[in-house]
């Protein structure tokens, strides 16, 4: 799979660490929102907004990938 780092261009997946779904951190005290943020995830067969870390340059990258085909619907960009 190839992922685009906005600074380095398209690179092989081996240069990246997957950092999970791209979600807003609710903050504040523990409650349903923080619980969902920490523990609950959608598992779509389709587009997923997610975060990657481009390890060699340290950039966090946000992309939207179709989990069925690995098509990069929105290529990697700054989060």
């Amino acid at each position: 799979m190839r992922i685009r780092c906005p600074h380095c261009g398209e690179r092989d997946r081996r240069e990246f660490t997957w950092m999970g779904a791209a979600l807003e951190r609710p903050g504040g005290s523990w409650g349903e929102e923080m619980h969902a943020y920490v523990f609950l995830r959608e598992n779509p067969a389709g587009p997923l907004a997610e975060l990657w870390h481009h390890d060699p340059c340290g950039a966090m990258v946000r992309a939207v990938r179709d989990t069925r085909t690995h098509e990069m619907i929105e290529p990697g960009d700054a989060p």
Partner: protein
Amino acid sequence: MPRLFEAPAFAELPALPGLSLAEGQWGVVTEVAPFKGELEGISSALQEAFGLDYPAPGESQTGDKARLLWVGPGRALLIGAEPPEWLGGRAALTGQTGAQAVLLVDGPAVEAVLARLVPVDLSAEVFPEGRTARTLIGHMTASVTRLGPATFELVVMRSMSGSLLHDLTRTARQVAARP
């Protein structure tokens, strides 16, 4: 008080077929990371001091007095000269002298050897002189910069210098052994 000696990053460099190796002499190295909103101001001041711009992603800028090498978003290494005083307060300045193992590789086999280790297209058409990439050499995080038609500069963490030589030795011999 007697001075401590400075050890090179590479104790010894092997003789390899198709490749010649030399340790890069960077001298003093400082990482320069501009704070928010300071990039433009810093860039024009760097122009005045060294005749160089703060590098864009993928750029290596070389002048007579110093060199600026892009190493990450908002981060560049100033190589070969002390950072001017006025930079402090507008950018994070972090001493990085000696933290890298810098190897210059040169020779007819250089692209073939690097093709075994670097997952980036390094051909002259798409990776010309002065282009740098933050990528991997084998399993090691690295900077790879083209310095000439058959010359590259490889930079890995100093602690991994032995592994860099190990990987280059293996692949150079394998490339040379092709029928």
